[in-house]
């Protein structure tokens, strides 16, 4: 009987410790609002293309709500365009990239200036040529994002695509 009580007490202590460990952290410092990821690569993660032959691949991206990024052809010279690229020597070559047209907007703070931007989801068409075999390509997307009042520094995000040249 004493053994059983001792055993149950030990179990109760163990469970108490486990339960407490799960809840610790809620009393820690609250995270203030910070910067969201401005652009996210959605898909495809894997593509299969004929080796050595230029093939069209559609790459889907999404701009975070409330933000916009300059299109590939912004209206002002000083604005940083959105550009997709693939590093050389990785078994996959980017022959050409076609970008969507972008939407013309004017911000309430500056109604006279028209910006050509991407918002929400957009698609870049990439014509790639892959050598035979599997290649994990770390392509890149460079962009510069703003909301209605402020702008974030230009950023380059990785675009990881598994390319099988068959």
């Amino acid at each position, binding site marked *: 009987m004493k053994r059983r009580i001792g*055993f149950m007490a*030990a*179990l109760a202590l*163990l*469970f108490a*410790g*486990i*339960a*407490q*460990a*799960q809840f*610790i*952290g809620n009393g*820690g*410092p609250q*995270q*203030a*609002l*910070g*910067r969201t990821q401005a652009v996210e690569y959605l898909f495809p993660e894997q593509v299969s293309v004929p080796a050595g032959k230029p093939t069209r691949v559609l790459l889907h991206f999404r701009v975070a709500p409330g933000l916009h990024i300059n299109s590939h052809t912004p209206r002002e010279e*000083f*604005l*940083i365009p959105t550009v997709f690229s693939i590093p050389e020597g990785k078994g996959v070559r980017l022959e050409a990239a076609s970008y969507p047209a972008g939407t013309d907007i004017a*911000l309430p*703070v*500056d109604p006279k*200036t028209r*910006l050509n931007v991407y918002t929400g989801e957009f698609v870049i068409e990439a014509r790639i040529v892959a050598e035979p075999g599997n290649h994990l390509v770390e392509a890149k997307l460079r962009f*510069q994002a*703003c909301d209605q*009042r*402020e*702008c*974030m*520094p*230009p950023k380059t995000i990785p675009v990881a695509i598994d390319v099988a040249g068959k």
Partner: protein
Amino acid sequence: MKRNTVVLGAVLLILAIFAWAGWANWEYRQQAAEKLLANQAKGELVPDTAGGPARYVSPLAGKPAPDFTLEDVKGRKVALSSFKGKAVLLNFWATWCGPCKLETPWLVELRNKYAGQGFEVVGISTEGEDLKPGDKVGWAKDREAVTKFAADMKVPYPMLLGGDSLSQPYGGLDAMPTSFFVNKNGVVVAAQMGLTSEAEIEANIKKALGE
């Protein structure tokens, strides 16, 4: 009896593993919380309790503005400490930043209005390009773009290059424009991130002047 012992031992072992996992999780959360606290040295946007737009809260508020020395567009070295005894508006901006260009005429006007009271604006170009010191072509382009902008906007105050090097001491510089208002004792009395209004900038200038 022997079987019961084995079962009991197995149960205790599994519980011990759970306990260890819980302890490891707690340790991880403690470390994450400490790391978050350390990162609180960065400026953050916090929700406005009155329901207005998020406010920029700088970790530098009430503290001495970190000193620095940068080059202006003519290659002359300019130190923050050289403005000692003046109220200063440190304006971090970028050539690709539309809101920055919108507020510049206000800064020019306010600088001219309050210069006689010991006030100066210092524009600091912060391109986010991570230019290496030896990148002569990159720096030359940067200098050319800033010089052109300053000429177009008739900027009467110093325009410095290389603001990215001040990101850590000035709380991260996550977005442009970001401004710090420094009083005559070198203490940061206000900070702004994003385009606000000429009236709000003027109010902070008066705060820096001690009015």
